């Protein structure tokens, strides 16, 4: 197992004691979303749940002083930082899997048309929401610590994303016309995320040469 994979596992273990709370939030989200357009299920889950769960290791790390543990474990600092991103990507992948299945079920039950194109645009939108939220927050958490940054960084991007989502949600049908641009949006997201990792490593306050 690579050092990054081990770190992803450590993040998973860090939030593991709070899985019940996570499931409750998930259930509430599903209950609320089930009456909606299936196309918004995945983007909404990413916005409401994934971005929070992805950042949760930072919350716990602050409280339990896990930065010391990271410094003591045989784990390169880069792997610690990359592992946080890896954990977020894992959360995203899980959301996409569960969310897509859920959308299909909702579409079938409510007999709403929900084709491949709509699904693709919905997933692309989810990816962009995820990338913006993580790419902005993580370097700040790593540089300043969660407790000093949380208010500014959780609410501000979320508010912005919320606005974007509402807009995109309204245009999601026309968005489908932009099908040929979707791969570009995925690549752009990946580039932004990679840039965020680079920034996080460069500005890391606990970096020891």
């Amino acid at each position: 197992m690579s050092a990054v994979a081990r770190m992803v596992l450590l993040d998973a273990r860090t939030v593991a004691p709070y899985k019940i709370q996570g499931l409750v939030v998930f259930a509430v989200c599903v209950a609320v979303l089930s009456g909606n357009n299936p196309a918004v299920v995945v983007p909404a889950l990413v916005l409401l749940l994934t971005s929070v769960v992805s950042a949760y290791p930072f919350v716990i790390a602050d409280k339990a002083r896990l930065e010391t543990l990271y410094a003591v474990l045989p784990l390169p600092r880069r792997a610690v930082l990359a592992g946080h991103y890896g954990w977020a990507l894992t959360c995203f992948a899980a959301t996409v899997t569960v969310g897509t299945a859920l959308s299909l079920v909702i579409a079938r039950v409510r007999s709403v048309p929900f084709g491949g194109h709509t699904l693709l645009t919905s997933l692309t939108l989810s990816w962009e929401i995820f990338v913006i939220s993580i790419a902005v927050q993580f370097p700040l958490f790593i540089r300043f610590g969660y407790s000093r940054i949380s208010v500014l960084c959780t609410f501000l991007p979320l508010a912005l994303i919320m606005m974007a989502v509402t807009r995109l949600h309204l245009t999601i049908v026309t968005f489908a016309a932009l099908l040929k641009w979707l791969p570009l949006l995925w690549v752009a997201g990946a580039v932004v995320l990679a840039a965020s990792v680079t920034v996080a490593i460069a500005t890391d306050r606990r970096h020891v040469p």
Partner: protein
Amino acid sequence: MSTDKAFALRGVGAAVSGAFALRDVSFELPTGYVMGLIGANGAGKTTILRCLLGMRRFDAGEIELLGRPVPGPVALRQDVGVVLDHTSLVGDWRLSGVERTLRPFYDRWDGARYRRLLDEFGLDLRARVKDLSRGMAVKLMIAVALSHRARLLVFDEPTSGLDPVARDELLGIIGDYLVDEGHSVLFSTHITADLDRIGDYVTLVHGGRIVRTGTRDELLEAYRIVRAGPDELTGLIGVELIGVRQNSIGAQALVRTEEADLIGGHVLIEAPTLEEIAVHIGARAPRRNREMA
């Protein structure tokens, strides 16, 4: 790899905050022994430990840990067990979960040993980290360190906040650990009584500098405590009185052994305890500290 030194710091300097800095910190510990790092709060003990463990950058000098330079390969941390003055584990983890979390990081993790140690230490696998007392938390961290077969244990103030029974137990655990002559222990403390018996080496820190380092007996031999009447310690030539305590009925100071012979009159000159050495050196102003080990 076998090395004769557990660690060595040579001329280490590090800016900390404001005027406080580590300056020219040099000391080393041969493999197989216990060293106590003593000094008042704020003397620089924790900063020294953090530099040694590669948790903090330093600006000057060099550090060697288990035969490797610091900062060095992270694999080195397989061999080092760290017990800091706070637990750095998630409070909601159960002790069984602590093992599940840490095991993947260590090549030589021994699960059976972990469970046996918890049992020996009277810790319940199902207990949560946040419910442990300070003494139990220290024992948990030791169990972790011993389960990944660390060759060097580094403690930061392990006995502070422990009751006498827990302190005695800890000293027993350290003795057990040292039965293997490849094992070494470094701990910082402001409770010198811990070192009176089990300390092989003592390093005295004051104001970010090393005042003296060596075997405990060497340190005890290096100083004498002088007790005299109110004005009998004034006007002495060639004798530096360290941390003089003076009142209307008497005066007391620490002096270097070689200078003690220069004091005449009816003063009482005695061998000091570690506590007295620490107290008197801790009482003097840091900037007057010209003495280097």
